[in-house]
């Protein structure tokens, strides 16, 4: 039986439909990422599940109970905010046990949970400090500890890492995932960062304009994007799409290679003008360290390919590119939906 069941959840502000008929189910202990570009309705969806927004239609069923009309406090869930939402006038300790005090949990139990949570998130020496004395990463840990002590079976996270710098974000990603597994938490994690979603989640729900575009494992979204939107969204850099008749053909940058004949003498020394297989010309090169992203003009469409190492071509430099047909993805030009390969 599903742990969290979302049925036909919709939200409408005046004439704009922010979230439209969202349905999904989550099993206990799963880590689910709600992914999408900004304004796609992912935060609104999360807030409706939390009870902070009232849905226009639909039901939220947690553990077999319809909680759609319950207050946030009655829903048995915890939440980590993007801003951390730590109370600035309370110490770390008081922030963490705020909810336990509000729920009148006995002192012994409160202290036991506090010690446990503080240990889990590694905050030992900080518990008497005020949030303003902590770094961003430490604030994030306090927010996590506050979610942990509540022992709520479902934890909602609203872009919890987006205020941290890249290095810290990578560390916290691993840590949150480890915590989630250790505590067996069910996590619904909102993010606009596909790297977070791909690396942390068991399954990803990709939202676009208030609707679910695709739901599945990270590999499924990457290997078999259900629509041209998913294809353009997932992957860094994303899939390039070319229009051919009534189809869009997608090909990932890492699947495009230079023709063998053009490769034999090495790219830098190769005299490009004499290669009869030349079919593309360079538009722009982007050096990333381990690889170089090259956008090329291929028969009137812009394609991206990534080559290992450092390659800087002049604009207009001809190249001979190729790929294997098994790596092609086909989408209907009209609906954008995936179609069988031709």
């Amino acid at each position: 039986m599903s742990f969290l069941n979302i049925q036909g959840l919709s939200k409408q502000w005046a004439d704009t439909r922010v979230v439209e008929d969202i349905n999904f189910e989550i099993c206990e202990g799963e880590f689910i990422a709600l992914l999408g570009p900004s304004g796609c309705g992912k935060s609104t969806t999360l807030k409706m599940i939390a009870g902070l927004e009232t849905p226009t239609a639909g039901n939220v069923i947690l553990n077999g109970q319809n909680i759609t009309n319950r207050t946030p406090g009655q829903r048995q869930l915890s939440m980590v905010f993007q801003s951390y939402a730590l109370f600035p006038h309370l110490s770390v300790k008081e922030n963490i046990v705020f909810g336990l005090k509000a729920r009148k949990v006995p002192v012994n139990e409160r202290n036991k949970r506090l010690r446990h949570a503080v240990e889990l998130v590694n905050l030992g020496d900080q518990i008497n400090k005020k949030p303003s004395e902590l770094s961003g990463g430490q604030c994030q840990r306090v927010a996590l500890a506050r979610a942990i002590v509540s022992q709520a079976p479902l934890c909602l996270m609203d872009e919890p890492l987006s205020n941290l710098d890249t290095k810290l974000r990578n560390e916290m990603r691993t840590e949150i995932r480890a915590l989630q597994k250790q505590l067996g938490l069910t996590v619904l994690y909102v993010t606009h960062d596909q790297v977070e979603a791909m690396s942390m989640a068991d399954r990803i729900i990709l939202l676009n304009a208030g609707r679910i575009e695709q739901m599945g494992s990270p590999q499924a979204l990457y290997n078999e994007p259900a629509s041209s939107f998913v294809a353009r969204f997932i992957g860094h850099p994303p899939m390039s799409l070319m229009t051919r008749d009534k189809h869009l053909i997608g090909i990932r940058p890492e699947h495009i290679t230079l023709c063998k004949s053009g490769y034999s003498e090495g790219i830098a020394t190769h005299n490009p003008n004499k290669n009869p297989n030349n079919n593309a010309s360079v538009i722009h090169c982007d050096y990333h360290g381990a690889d170089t992203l090259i956008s090329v003009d291929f028969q009137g469409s812009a394609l991206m390919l990534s080559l290992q190492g450092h390659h800087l071509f002049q604009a207009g430099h001809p190249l001979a590119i190729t790929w294997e047909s098994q790596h092609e993805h086909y989408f209907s030009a009209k609906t954008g939906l995936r179609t069988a390969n031709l």
Partner: protein
Amino acid sequence: MKLNMPRHQQIYAWLLLFPALALLAAFTHIPMIKTLWRSFTSSGMQNNTGFTLDNYRYLLEDDVFWQVLSNSLWYAAVTVPVSMILALAMALWVNGKIRGRSALRLAYFTPTILPMITVANIWLFFYTPEIGLFNNILGWFGHSGYNWLGDPDLSLFSLMLMTIWKEAGFFMIFYLAALQGISRDFYQAAAIEGSSRWTTLRRITLPLLMPTTLFVLINAFLNAFKLVDHLFILTKGGPNNATNLLLYYIYENAFSFFDAAYASVLTVVLLSILVVLAVFQFGVIERRVHYR
């Protein structure tokens, strides 16, 4: 403190400070010192009569002074907390999602826009025994009404009521601004943690409003001692000094009884009270206030 700055920068600094310093000195510091000096060295309207403690001796024997002091303290002790609590309650209310809250906010703020003299004239009409609004309303219930301003037991209370009406709306604006500065995330986090309305108010809203509360408290106390305009219209300190406040008594002594020396002594008393209040507020309360 020794300032490590080149000489020409020091001159700039003093030049920039000069206008404010000159005004403060001319209208605040020098008069204060002069008042203190005169309270010891003058008698009636005559200056430089030699050092004397007579003025202070008279102060201790002056029954009217003690009544005025007690009136002023009561006036502050009642109007300050009541208008602040009312202001907070109104701010919490008009900060919520209610219909016509702009109109409501404006309505609450209106008394503040009016000059105190105008307010006093309006309330004079409310309080007048025969044709006054209050007694008319009481009349509908068969009550003979009160002599709001003429009854010594009632008149100070009547003044307090009007002051609260005037001040609460002003303080509400400060509370409202502060409330709107509190992030909604705090309330959402508290809601998720199962915090009741009362707990949220007590443990989040009120502590976060403390800087505002301190500011309003200082202003409210200063106003309580500073505002005497309404006395000129409503009671002139009467009946039998029942509504006489310290500043009005100073005015009476200086400009009605022409006893500048005694007015100086009373001014020293008033200043001392305000200094003690300021020290208490900034020294004691501020340490317990959380500033973001």
